[in-house]
């Protein structure tokens, strides 16, 4: 009897240990805590509703914003909301492009650069040399994008990984990649033609990076004045491919195609594990080398990283940051985290 109890206890302990090890292994392998579902909450703003903007002081004076047209409307809402709380602050927005906005920050003709792509290490190094200190770049939201093809293109999915991208250049690549839709689906030798916005925009650079991977896309990309024009071109091009927002993807003559992500993505945004169809949007500022931040700049960034600032982006159909992403951006800014 005692022996049976002993073995029963031993068996129970072994099963328990297996369960623990299995649960632990599963959790570690997935890089999750095993509790929260990886999907975004139902309403992305819901979890932010308690992150109110709490000004520390009333600020005044000019603040110059410049850069990406993707963020232009969000920035206009930011300006309006911020100036409601700080009526003597004057925000101006120069709608140019990510490249021009970054340059304006480096030239000190802008206080805040609006960016719709990541800034390269080379660009940061050049800016640091000129400014004497590195700009700080933080994520402020996302632009949810979808891949579109001609409606008669039967391709089911686009295989993708960060190194090789999704599109072949056809020659000398390992692994080999395809340059016509023939290789991906039953579409006889129709060349892949990528459509995007004009060069210089963050939207275009992001497309190039996703399409071509680390090496970049060596083939031609047809530039268009707007994403809508690119979508229309794809609707008229049997071999067309593009990356557009939800609104443009709903146009007639187009079909949405999912990405097949081969390996894990090393996220662009600290504190975030979103897939690459969530294009990060950033602002860049140049904080002081030492001492406190200029109050109006700090208040503005604090507003952007609050519920009303994120609500402003959602009003233009952009995707707000999650709570964790917001906390991570504040940490990136070097702001003390008091808990």
């Amino acid at each position, binding site marked *: 009897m005692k022996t049976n109890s002993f073995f029963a206890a031993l068996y129970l302990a072994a099963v328990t240990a297996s369960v623990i090890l299995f649960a632990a292994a599963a959790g570690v392998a997935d890089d999750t805590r095993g509790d929260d579902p990886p999907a975004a909450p139902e309403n992305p703003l819901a979890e932010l509703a308690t992150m*109110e903007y709490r000004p520390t002081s009333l600020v005044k004076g000019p603040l110059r914003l410049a850069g990406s047209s993707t963020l232009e409307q969000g920035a206009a809402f930011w300006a309006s909301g911020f100036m409601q709380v700080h009526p003597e602050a004057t925000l101006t927005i120069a709608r140019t492009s990510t490249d021009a906005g970054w340059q304006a920050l480096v030239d000190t003709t802008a206080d805040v650069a609006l960016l719709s792509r990541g800034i390269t290490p080379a660009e940061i190094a050049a800016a640091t040399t000129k400014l004497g200190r590195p700009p700080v770049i933080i994520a402020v939201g996302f632009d949810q994008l979808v891949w579109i093809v001609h409606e008669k293109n039967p391709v089911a999915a686009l295989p993708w990984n960060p190194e090789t991208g999704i599109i072949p250049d056809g020659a000398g690549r390992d692994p080999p990649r395809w340059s016509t839709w023939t290789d991906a689906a039953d579409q006889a030798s129709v060349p892949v033609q990528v459509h995007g916005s004009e060069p210089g925009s963050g939207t275009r650079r992001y497309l190039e990076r996703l399409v071509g991977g680390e090496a970049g896309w060596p083939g031609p990309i047809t530039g268009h004045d707007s994403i809508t024009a690119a979508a229309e071109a794809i609707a008229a091009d049997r071999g067309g491919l593009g990356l557009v927002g939800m609104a443009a993807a709903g146009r007639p003559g187009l079909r949405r195609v999912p990405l097949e992500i081969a390996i894990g993505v090393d996220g662009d945004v600290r504190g975030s594990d979103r897939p690459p169809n969530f294009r990060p949007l950033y602002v860049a500022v140049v904080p002081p080398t030492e001492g406190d931040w200029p109050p109006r700049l700090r208040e503005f960034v604090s507003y952007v990283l609050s519920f009303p600032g994120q609500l402003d982006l959602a009003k233009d159909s952009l995707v707000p940051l999650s709570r964790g992403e917001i906390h991570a951006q504040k940490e990136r800014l070097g702001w003390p985290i008091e808990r």
Partner: protein
Amino acid sequence: MTMATCRPKSWVPIIFSNGALGVLAAAMLAILSGVLADADEPRTRDDSASGAPGAQMSYLRPAPARPGAYRLGINVQNSPVGVQVIEVGSGTLAKSAGLEVGDTIVAVGGYQVGYVGERLFDLGDELARRVDVSESVTLLVRHGRTGDLANVPVQFASATRSVAGRLFSDGKARLPASGVLVVRVVDVTHPEWENVSVVQAQFPAGEFPVSYQLVLPTLASGHRYAVDARGEHGGRIVLQTSQPTPLAAVDRDQQVDLVLTAAAATGVSSSTGLAPVARPTGPPAASGLVPVAATPSPSLQPRDQIDQWIRAYLGRPPRNFETDVWVAELMRGRSLSSVQAGILSSTELFERVSRSPDLYVAEVYRLLTGSQPSPAQFADLRKRFDQALGVRLQFVEGLIPPSR
């Protein structure tokens, strides 16, 4: 595997050893605890949001309960192995619990904190999520000097402050059963900040008086705060307090009863954010060649009006939560006409006309008036667009009369 040494009284020893194995064991414990806690404790507590049990959010439902209300009194830095303590305030909960600079908080209530993979699980959010009904929680802490792991119980009950009371009707005010009551604490340090809410909670409509409770986050010293309330239905404020009631102090619990009256009768200006949603009336804001008839239908509730604008201007039905976003904007004190301007100045509409300013100004005119602009009107519109430096929101706001 060696036994961990016992920390001061508040530290509960656990069985894992120092070093990497201890970290793995701690991670296993944290993960398993998380799984079990998840099974035992569904996320219903999150529904209470920042208010008392039973509070509900109709438009936006915050996830973590009472964030900011539970503070240990430490400065931290997040890392992949947990949350590192870089400063401990004197006289704080952290101090009395035995936390020291160099310690790492690995888990809160069994849930890992810090960077887990690419995601950040914030200590403050986790404290708010994991405190139990007695406002206590257990931290798993790796001691900085010894590397030992220990469970550290923390009791917040005496450390939180709240504002509680009852909401009364003036006898005439009514709120439909599907409406909600919103109570908030606002920063009234400057007149410009009268709409700056620091914490708020929503409660279902019910028989008056309705009890409420708001747990206060840490509030800035030197600022002044007040509490107000309103009743909302269909995107419209139908009841409200006539003015915010100042809080006498923020370092102790307070009882504040509030009386709500019919919103239309209070006469509070729209800039307070507490006025009923006004409909644009009167002449266009800017004189000139462009007559604009932008009056919303008086028979529509604001929510329905927003739906209608999205369909009419963007040519599609509202997406998930799209209307909620705009209603949230209304509830934050913006007018219905500012919502209309926001939709008309959207990137989506600008994209639809291929980002052409000429086509855009003509399209906005057509959507507002139902007709194409004459050449003179077009020239005037184009001039206004340029005067707004191409900022579409500013351009459209100049065409739509402001709400009263």
